């Protein structure tokens, strides 16, 4: 980190698209002429740099496929010794499990964003509630 007061941020860009690959996003970022650092990951890209530059680049990447590119800020920069698994002896970094769980439900969110304009809440189908343990027990016993 430089000694100057630079407002540096890191953003995680997660790609859940059929038309844009994480490598496409990375190429788009490499093409930009701003002073940032990027790291490609299995789910997308991490972008670090001055706030304005990062936000500009992230907006460009998001524009590739707006409803299928998701962005959030990250506290730690990529490769930070306190989080990077290279210096922690392997294993997923703290926070990875949460991200992975959310990434698994991104297809649902992407599709919902695609259909947001045409969605009519009055046609909403009621989802079945979770089954109660006692009912589940009855079902199990009835099949025995």
């Amino acid at each position, binding site marked *: 980190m430089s000694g100057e007061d630079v407002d540096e941020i890191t953003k995680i860009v997660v790609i859940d698209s059929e038309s844009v690959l994480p490598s496409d996003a990375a190429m788009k970022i490499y093409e930009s002429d701003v002073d940032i650092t990027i790291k490609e990951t299995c789910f997308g890209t991490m972008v670090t740099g001055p706030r304005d530059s990062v936000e500009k680049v992230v907006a460009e990447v998001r524009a590739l496929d707006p409803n299928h590119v998701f962005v*959030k*800020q990250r506290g730690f920069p990529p490769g930070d010794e306190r989080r990077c698994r290279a210096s922690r002896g392997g294993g997923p970094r703290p*926070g990875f499990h949460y991200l992975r769980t959310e990434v698994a*439900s991104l297809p649902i969110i992407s599709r919902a*964003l695609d259909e947001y304009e045409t969605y009519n809440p009055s046609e909403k189908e009621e*989802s079945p509630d979770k089954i109660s343990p006692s009912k589940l027990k009855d079902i199990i016993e009835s099949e025995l």
Partner: protein
Amino acid sequence: MAKIFIYPTNSLILSDLVERFGHKPLAMMEKIREKITTVGIDSPPINITPEDPKLGLKYAAVEVPAGVRGRMSIVGPLIDEAEAAIIVLDSASAFGCMGCARTNELTKFLARQKDIPRLEVKYPRTEEEGKDFVYQIAEFLNSLPNEEDEE
């Protein structure tokens, strides 16, 4: 642009949706960034200053476990700053960084106590629920004042 408190506080989906619909998410990540980039913290990765437990005492009593108070010293100011809140219930992933159940309860309690517009939705499990989830959040965010910052 309203400041929206999100729960789970580190959610990618919520943080993205809030930003997408033109508001500012108040998320844990920004606070963590401030913490780890503040010059003067002596012993990373502990990142706790003597001020933090005192700050946590504003939200949780002294007999509450230190972990809750430590977490509340980060989450509490976010709730104080919030102009609206989105709470997602039934999150299967309330573990890891979000793994303290008591902090989670206290966080939701404080957000509910505050007199601000609030939306509570369940985490979507199916595509149909996903559509409703996004619709509700989008409508809630669109209903909030969205004027540009006056500063």
